């Protein structure tokens, strides 16, 4: 049974957002608020339990200048190692694929190869170079990604990409694990006399003491 975008985006409540006063205006949209970005979230059968969406994708219509901050835990998951390499070789990226359910940490070379295979398959579908696809994973440490389920879901995930608020909201739900609420926000402000939008989504509820560089 496939869930509509609307059902995905409202699967769990949204977090209250605490923004200080400032020269900005909060707008709906999360990761799709800024020009050129699309997002999608769906259930791909990756979770151990339940049918909450567990696969998210954020894409950019153009080569986007990329940056990343990563855990300094030396037991770093395969997607962390992969993204660090990708950012080393390329200043731009066009897609971020995120799975929830398996952390793909402590999974050795096989786990790393899984990341490369998923990035390559998505790059082919989106007609991009593999190093323009970045990967994030979250879930149980020691478990490899349910690769077949993920690869089978990619065509549908790509087909459901949209620049709508629902696209952003469903992606924000799909990246959660033990979160009780989804986290997503966007603002609009004037920078250099132009209207600029900054948005984002995040997940996290337990194992939280980030030390990223």
């Amino acid at each position, binding site marked *: 049974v496939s869930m509509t975008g609307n059902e995905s985006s409202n699967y769990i409540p949204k977090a209250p957002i*605490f923004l200080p006063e400032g020269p900005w205006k909060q707008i709906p949209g999360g990761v799709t608020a800024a020009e050129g*970005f699309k997002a999608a979230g769906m259930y791909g059968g990756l979770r151990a339990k339940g049918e909450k969406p567990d696969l998210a994708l954020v894409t*950019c219509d153009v080569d986007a200048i990329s940056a990343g901050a990563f*855990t300094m835990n030396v037991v770093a998951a395969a*997607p962390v190692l992969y993204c660090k390499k990708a950012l080393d070789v390329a200043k731009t990226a066009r897609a971020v694929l995120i799975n929830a359910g398996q952390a793909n940490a402590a999974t050795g070379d096989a786990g790393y190869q899984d990341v490369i295979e998923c990035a390559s398959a998505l790059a082919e579908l989106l007609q991009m170079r593999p190093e323009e696809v970045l990967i994030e994973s979250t879930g149980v440490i020691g478990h490899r990604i349910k690769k077949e389920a993920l690869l089978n879901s990619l065509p549908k995930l790509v087909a459901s990409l949209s620049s709508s608020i629902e696209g952003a909201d469903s992606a924000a739900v799909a990246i959660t694990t033990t979160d009780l*609420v989804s986290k997503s926000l966007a603002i609009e402000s004037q920078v250099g006399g132009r209207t600029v939008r900054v948005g984002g989504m995040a997940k*996290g*509820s*337990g*194992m939280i003491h980030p030390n990223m560089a």
Partner: protein
Amino acid sequence: TLLGVITTDAMVASDVWRKMVQIAVNRSFNQITVDGDTSTNDTVIALASGLSGLTRIVSINSYEAMQLQECLDVVMQGLAKSIAWDGEGATCLIEVSVTGADSETEAAKIARSVASSSLAAVYGRDPNWGRIACAAGYAGIPFHQNKLQVLLGDILLMEAGEPQPFDRAAASNYLRKAGETHGTVEIHISVGDGLGSGQAWGCDLSYDYVKINAEYTT
């Protein structure tokens, strides 16, 4: 595990963007804590499409860069706070604000030390100024303890390094109300006369946290 994806349509040079993202991460996600466990997977990816038509920002010291940095900070802080607010078993968000340090980095470190300490007392609705002072003191940042001031909300608990008489019931009610409404407990700390200030966010430690993680298995 913390994951994040940040997007903007600002046009910014790669080296500037990467510096800005790290600065914003240091002022937001790196300043939150729920349980003191740094994950194997924590990642934030930030993409700038440049499609807003803004002239490319090529210097981090430009006015436009400062404007964009402010926007980046507030988006990441908003997301970071919502993670701390949603900590496993949490009944309230704890926001620790430190002023008077010699630098932003030092203030941030003190703030995060306080937010990281197992402030079970917040869950117990106990205005435990002693634990707050202790956590500030072991942050690894030197300061004159006779300059330490601690407020819970707007209730003065400590001044010049010593406890002050305060309305215990009011302080406890402040904590209880935050717990009942899943609101915010504000802890304000001043450690001197410096210009450095910083913030950190955490949540209270409840029985539910233990229960959730006792049942969780890798």
